[in-house]
């Protein structure tokens, strides 16, 4: 029937441009990379096209498993903090009058139009031994505190770097909520926090999920911040992959690690989709 023909045409028009693009520029390159997982590193780098499953066996190395677990932990903590900080912000931006809305939104990303590495260094300046915060504390005869080169600093840096990735999807989700629903909730006796928990949050859950994914994924794979703010004293999965590609020039094992990361993330995405659908 024509309705379903129309629907198929719609599916074609909407889906094919993006999917074609992704097929060519994502799936093909990715397939190339993934084909390396069954080959060997050349003696001096490069790839020797001899089949092996050894790369997968190497994944079981407790060193790598440990780093993955640690990375999951750090990424999770980062995500939770970014959510706690980002939600009220996104919420308030969504309530602002229209002309302020755009300004507030752009103001969230504007610091990020400088440069990642410079921003991270700014944190070094803030947190380091002779840095700004410790200088401030010194005036009051306190400190110095060991603020830098620990996991706390990594988390702070990650939250800072990826906060916009939390705020923007949250904004998009919260902005569409009908304010009357909050009014109805208040009217039925719900305190603001209850209204939030029972109405606003569940209805903005898709945004929460997207934001969490956006923060979790790059945090999990980050390598610059563990180096600069963590002092390379605890590294994350991103560092591992980077070391394999850059230091070891071991594309096969680097690709295998990447495949493992993708697998972990896909599991998380599936769980997220499942939770979102239940909500």
């Amino acid at each position, binding site marked *: 029937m024509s309705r379903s023909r129309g629907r198929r045409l719609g599916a074609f028009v909407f889906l094919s441009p993006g999917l074609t693009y992704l097929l060519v520029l994502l799936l093909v390159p990715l397939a190339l990379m993934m084909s390396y997982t069954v080959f060997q590193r050349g*003696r001096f780098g490069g790839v020797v096209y001899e089949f092996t499953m050894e790369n997968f066996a190497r994944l079981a190395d407790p060193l790598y498993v440990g780093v993955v677990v*640690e990375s999951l932990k750090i990424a999770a903590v980062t995500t939770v903090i970014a959510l706690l900080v980002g939600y009220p912000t996104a919420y308030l931006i969504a309530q602002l009058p229209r002309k302020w809305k755009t300004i507030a939104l752009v103001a969230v990303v504007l610091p990020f139009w400088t440069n990642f590495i410079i921003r991270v260094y700014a944190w070094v300046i803030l947190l380091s031994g002779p840095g700004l915060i410790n200088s401030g504390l010194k005036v009051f005869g306190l400190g110095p505190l060991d603020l830098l*080169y620990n996991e706390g600093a990594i988390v702070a840096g990650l939250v800072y770097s990826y906060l916009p990735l939390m705020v923007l999807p949250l904004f998009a989700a919260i902005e569409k909520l009908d304010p009357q629903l909050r009014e109805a909730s208040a009217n039925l006796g719900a305190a603001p926090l209850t209204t939030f928990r029972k109405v606003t949050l569940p209805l903005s859950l898709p945004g929460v999920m997207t934001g969490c994914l956006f923060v979790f994924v790059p945090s999990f794979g980050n390598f610059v911040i563990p180096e600069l703010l963590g002092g390379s004293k605890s590294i994350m999965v991103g560092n*591992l992959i980077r070391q394999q590609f850059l230091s070891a020039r071991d594309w096969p094992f680097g690709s295998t690690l990447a495949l493992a990361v993708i697998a972990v993330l896909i599991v998380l995405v599936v769980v997220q989709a499942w939770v979102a659908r239940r909500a």
Partner: protein
Amino acid sequence: GGESSSGSNGSTVAAADQLKPNADLSKQSLQITVWDGYTPETLPQKVKDKLKVKDVQIQLHDTNEIAMNKLTAPGDSGIDVAFVSGQYAQALNEQGLLEPIHPELIPNLANLYPEATQLSYDKGNKYSVPYTWGTTGICYRTDLVKAKPTSWNDLLKPPAWAEKKVTMMTTERWLALPALKALGYSVNTDKDDEIAKVRELLMAQKPHLLTYDDTTFGDRLKSGEAVMVEAWDGWCPTTDPKGNIAFQVPKEGSDLWVDTMVIMKSSKNKEAAHALINYILDPSIHSWAAENINYKVPNKAAMEQVKIAKGSLLDIPPAKLLDGESIIDLGQASTKYTRLSSDVQAK
């Protein structure tokens, strides 16, 4: 090292005759990849004027490693001349990616110190030409150390006054270097038991470190955040006006690092590439690095033009430098060092 030179000999012979000394350079243009600030900013213009090549483009890379991935990927990277450290030049050559150097096209090779033709990763400069060289040691604050560091162990087992005021380099081979030397091993060892010992030392050191760092240790010394760091000689800010920073090569010995120039086999502008290297080896050009960025250059004629202060970093004679052991690519065994650094740095 023996194996690697046989590999390079093979490729040297293969392509020896194809270049024309009188090729028309105005039909060639050059793509160079180099670290930022490592060559004079005016170089492209000067090369264009002097060699009459069509165009010169500089691409910047931030580390050897990232440049390597671009240079080793399948297909033509489009790069004609690359600046990479010695062992990376070796690895590129082992993969058959480098054009053998045609000495006849680089008369200025004669300017090099004789020592500079005896570098273990490439004896006889068959595929690489050294640009700068130096060593690794301890850079420290003369006013903040209680005792002048003389041994790698001063860094590896920091005394109480240096607690959390010490940094080590993070790049794997240099991460291992102090421990290897302190234990009396070769920097190029591939023995598992030796690497295990190194791991132990580094693990024990980790809690006492401020951080791993191979870019900003100079700043840390200046600000007093660190008092003693592992450093490449050229990056130790001994020229700081306050004059309280010094460099020491520990008594156990160290390495000899060399940053080199190589020509890619895929280059379509090989005559121009040779002409470029020849031009850089001109003393008036090559001395720029020593005069401006405090790097020793392996160019006798160039160094003779430079005013060298007694006891300064530039004041290390080539013979002394060659006491240092050149780091070479270990082939399959080099991944052991990658794992070592992952292991040490993981929580």
